[in-house]
């Protein structure tokens, strides 16, 4: 989610320290795994916000500006992502996503959480989660198509 192993390890430590500090506040309103994920995601979001505005925050990803949003597909289908996608190319494209899109894409498509679980973790509506996931996939498609096009020209 942060695209850096050392930073991910620091955040893992911070998440467990927060867990140790806050475990007594868990009231069982949600599944423990959801609560723990929410806590860990808050640690990640705080870190992303601390790092400044080079990354779009989750709030901003909910309302991306037109130039930051993915393009819609009304042109000719000149280039499609046929066959298997190169894993490294996709990992690079995911790393380049704005933080909010990346978070929802990883939670849903990589880790397999359902939209209702993501909505609960991120305090957003299920519709919002679906919509942001869709925009994340569209942005990835744009990035992968651009890459394929570039490779075809060289």
């Amino acid at each position, binding site marked *: 989610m942060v695209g850096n192993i050392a930073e*991910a*390890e620091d955040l*893992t*430590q911070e998440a*467990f*320290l927060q867990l*140790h*500090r806050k475990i007594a506040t868990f009231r069982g309103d949600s599944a423990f795994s959801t609560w723990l994920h929410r806590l860990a995601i808050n640690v990640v979001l705080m870190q992303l916000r601390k790092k400044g505005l080079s990354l779009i925050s989750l709030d901003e990803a909910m309302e991306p500006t037109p130039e930051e949003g993915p393009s*819609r*597909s*009304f*042109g*000719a*289908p000149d280039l*499609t*992502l046929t066959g*298997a*996608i190169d*894993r490294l190319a*996709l*990992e690079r494209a*995911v790393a380049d996503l704005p933080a909010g899109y990346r978070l929802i*894409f*990883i939670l849903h*498509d*990589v880790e*397999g959480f359902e*939209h209702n679980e993501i909505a609960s973790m991120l305090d957003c509506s*299920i*519709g919002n989660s*679906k*919509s942001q*996931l*869709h925009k994340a*996939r*569209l942005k*990835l*498609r744009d990035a*992968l*198509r651009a890459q394929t096009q570039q490779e075809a020209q060289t």
Partner: protein
Amino acid sequence: MTSDPSKLSCAEFQAQLPDLIGSGVDASTHPHLQNCELCGSLLADLETIAEAARQLFPGVEPPDEVWEHIESAIKQKDEKSAGEPGLAPES
């Protein structure tokens, strides 16, 4: 906006896509796709990306040092809390 799904424009169909895909139904059977190569290829690409995502970041486990750091940080915090008046657990 038309109520007949086969007469949707591409813009209308694509506006419905997030809900359609998120609902769990097979979006590829939507009537709009029977005559629209453009939206068909869009949907195929999005499904390919979602499928490929399952193979990403396999088996990433933090190294043992991370757990050791966590353990020692928790111990330090506990010792610090025990030493501070008013923060020690009630006996």
